[in-house]
């Protein structure tokens, strides 16, 4: 604090001197502590300065004094009056209080924030203990924290004991370290935060797979791991991937992981009978360590198989279930079911779309904790199909009167549907060609006659006409579109033969689909030069695998003739580049399945699909109806605009011939 001093002083050393002679005015700059905040006007200047100095004992205060002479000339008059001047100045002392009021102090409290903490504790599960024991027993070591590394073990010279720790593990490692890993996310029906965190805080799926050292014959595609992560936590789920994306592999891997984690112990897989051997092969390929039992044989044996303990995976076919229902609905003395499963998986689950059907009822009566459905076509005809599947997954969850868009939103968390276009950028393209052909003159004549007569008969029936009468006419006309019954001419056949010549020359193979065995046989007669093989409902089941093997391995067999019913599901024919739909099925989903036998993972090149369509015939009219069904599917599974018609009504069936049906509105297809 600086103070400006101003003083006037009389020198005591020269008492005789006059003020005018010796008076000085001094200016001094002094530093004083704040406590001495009084300005003292006094002649005791030196005392005040001394106080200031003592406040800085370590440092000597430097004062600069600027003096200025204030000599004032005084005239002394003879009167002597001015002798009074010789008297000293009378000095008075007075004080001025310059202190201001003490400032008001406002104190702000800055407390530490109060922090509430929520805690969740997870027991070190038996799962981890199992891993510890398993890894100890397998003498595997060197895997990294967070379960990621085995490569390091190799680098350290500690070779894993299994021969097949292949590049797939490195592929998984790459996925993990690249950050493109997949997480097991909790389904929406898991409510408690603790339960949801239990899923969210687990390592990535890739890390879990590596931790358990699950080997794969092929590196799974990322979307397949996404499918496994989808299935793993769900008690009710539909994996509705497009045909050919590997639903089988995804289901087996999810089952394998759940078994390894101890989440499930007993699994039942239900599939169409022709696919039982296919599932056996797939389990052997993707989960060779899991024992699989096929339920078959005499009733007594089957009952024993149903009740047998300690079989992780059982495979049964749909046809068997109504017959064996008494075995798996039986209860013990306490009313508990003798046969119960932790997981029931339905392959081609559209088989239970009819809720009143015996198969559907038998499937629903199986005691189970988890229910999964696998299908590429969850909706074949109408939303009722989906309601039927959900009666198995979660009874009452859907109602038939729900609008498609609402149904799509409701089931969103339960259904995973991917298409090849979305997930397989490297899959060869599928080229669809609608081959519109004109009937031969002979066919046209026969066709027109048959349609005229048929419509006339239907009209004559009046109110007695039924949907069966209409179907009979449709079938009759479609057969004429294939071959003229009188002359055997066929516009489709001419076109097919022309195409096949080129295909055979290039060394490629083709599959030809028809809904009638008779048509297939007629085609076969005309294609003898290509050594055609047959795969249809009359082909004995035990010969079917051999037919496929011969077609795949023997270059002499250029053509496979298949019926939609026998060849639409569960077969892998990705070495085929050409597919012909000689006639059209009622249901586009079945057609898609047929096409996807060839267009799937591993396809050798582009798959060219030729759909024959005779112009100005019943085929063209049916095609319009099929397109409407495609729109229905899109509405539910991709949120597209709601189609005008949700199903093929009786009126529309009659409308194929410009007829009016009976007054009731029962749905027909």
């Amino acid at each position, binding site marked *: 604090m600086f103070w400006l001093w101003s003083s006037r002083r009389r020198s005591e050393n020269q008492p005789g001197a006059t003020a005018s002679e010796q008076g000085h005015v001094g200016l001094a700059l002094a530093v004083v502590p704040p406590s001495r905040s009084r300005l003292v006007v006094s002649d005791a200047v030196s005392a005040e300065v001394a106080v200031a100095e003592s406040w800085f004992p370590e440092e000597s205060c430097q004062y600069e004094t600027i003096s200025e002479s204030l000599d004032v000339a005084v005239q002394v008059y003879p009167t002597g009056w001015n002798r009074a001047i010789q008297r000293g100045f009378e000095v008075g002392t007075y004080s001025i209080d310059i202190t201001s009021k003490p400032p008001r102090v406002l104190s702000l409290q800055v407390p530490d924030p109060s*922090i509430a903490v929520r805690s969740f504790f997870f027991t070190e599960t038996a799962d*981890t203990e199992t891993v510890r024991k398993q890894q100890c027993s397998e003498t595997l070591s060197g895997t990294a924290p967070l379960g990621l590394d085995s490569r390091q073990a190799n*680098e350290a010279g500690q070779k894993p004991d299994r021969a097949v720790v292949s590049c797939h593990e490195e592929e998984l490692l790459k996925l993990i370290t690249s950050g493109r890993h997949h997480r097991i996310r909790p389904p929406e029906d898991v409510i408690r935060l603790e339960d949801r965190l239990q899923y969210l805080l687990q390592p990535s799926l890739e890390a879990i797979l590596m931790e358990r050292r699950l080997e794969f014959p092929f590196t799974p595609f990322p979307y397949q791991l996404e499918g496994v992560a989808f299935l793993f936590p769900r008690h009710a789920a539909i994996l509705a991937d497009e045909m050919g994306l590997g639903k089988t592999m995804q289901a087996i891997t999810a089952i394998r992981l759940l078994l390894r984690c101890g989440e499930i112990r007993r699994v039942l897989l239900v599939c169409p009978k022709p696919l039982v051997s296919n599932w056996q092969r797939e389990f052997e390929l993707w989960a060779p360590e899991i024992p699989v039992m096929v339920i078959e044989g005499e009733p007594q044996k089957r009952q024993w198989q149903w009740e047998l303990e300690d079989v992780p995976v059982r495979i049964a076919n749909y046809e068997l279930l109504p017959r064996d229902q008494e075995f798996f609905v039986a209860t013990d003395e306490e009313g508990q079911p003798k046969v119960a499963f932790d997981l029931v998986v339905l392959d081609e689950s559209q088989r239970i779309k009819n809720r009143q059907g015996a198969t559907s009822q038998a499937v629903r009566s199986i005691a189970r904790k988890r229910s999964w459905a696998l299908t590429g076509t969850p909706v074949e005809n109408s939303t009722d199909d989906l309601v039927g599947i959900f009666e198995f997954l979660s009874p009452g969850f859907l109602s038939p009167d729900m609008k498609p868009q609402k149904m799509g939103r409701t089931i969103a968390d339960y259904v995973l549907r991917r298409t090849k276009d979305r997930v397989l950028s490297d899959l060869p393209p599928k080229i669809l060609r609608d081959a519109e052909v004109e009937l031969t003159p002979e066919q046209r004549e026969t066709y027109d006659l048959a349609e005229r007569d048929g419509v006339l008969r239907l009209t004559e029936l009046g109110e007695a006409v039924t949907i069966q009468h209409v179907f009979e006419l449709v079938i009759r006309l479609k057969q004429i579109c294939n071959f003229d019954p009188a002359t055997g001419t066929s516009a489709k056949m001419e076109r097919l033969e022309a195409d096949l010549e080129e295909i055979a020359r290039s060394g490629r193979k083709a599959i030809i689909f028809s809904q009638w065995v008779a048509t297939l046989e007629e085609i076969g007669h005309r294609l003898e030069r290509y050594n055609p093989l047959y795969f249809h409902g009359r082909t004995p089941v035990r010969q079917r695998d051999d037919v496929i093997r011969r077609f795949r391995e023997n270059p002499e067999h250029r053509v496979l003739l298949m019926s939609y019913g026998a060849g639409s599901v569960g077969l892998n024919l990705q070495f085929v580049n050409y597919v012909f739909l000689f006639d059209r099925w009622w249901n586009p989903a079945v057609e898609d399945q047929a096409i996807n036998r060839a267009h799937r993972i591993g396809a050798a090149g582009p798959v060219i699909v030729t759909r024959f369509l005779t112009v100005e015939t019943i085929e063209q009219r049916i095609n319009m109806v099929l397109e409407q069904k495609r729109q229905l599917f899109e509405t539910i599974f991709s949120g597209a605009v709601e189609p005008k018609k949700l199903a093929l009504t009786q009126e529309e069936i009659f409308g194929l011939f410009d007829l009016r049906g009976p007054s009731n509105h029962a749905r027909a297809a």
Partner: protein
Amino acid sequence: MSENHDSVGNRLALRLGFFSVRPHTDGGFIGGYLILNGVGRPLEFHCTTPVKPTRTQEILYGATLKPYLFGEQIAPALIAKAKTAVQIVFVSQWESLCLASQVSEPVALVCSEHTMPSHLSGTSVSETTGSDDPLRTATLLQSQPCVVLEQIGLPPWETVQIGKHHLAVATIRPEASTQVRELLSPWETGLDLLEPFERIEAALEEASRRG
């Protein structure tokens, strides 16, 4: 054989803590602390309710607000609730390195392109350090902008490389970086120390969503 048993046993015996903070939608921050065993399985998870600094705190703490909140308030509150003692605490934000003055375990920042001091936010890593490489980032930050870090009250630190990761280990206790090396070096190949922070992020998001 016994060596293998020991190896597996050591791996499972590891206890690693991961601490991260994320902004909350209603303002403030929410912190999460995840404890994993050696194979990445969760043992404990603790999270805070949103911690919102007052305007006074924002003004008075200035650039030191986040180090104060993250490292001195949120993290210690979470760790105090844990029942499992960990060998290392990994953090995902520079500001959390202050935690080293609060706990006895080594505290290590897992460097990534996102682990920049908040007051440098808006400046990309490459602009600040001339590199997107975490090692280079860490090295350059150690040599030059360290002055800036000291100004916001962060402790001294040392760069340690474990596998593909570059860790900034707080060296309030000089032996910390050696401890980290010794604990993690046997498992360094393929080790993903950033992945657990994704889990914390997902869990915090879920906790925020579900209230």
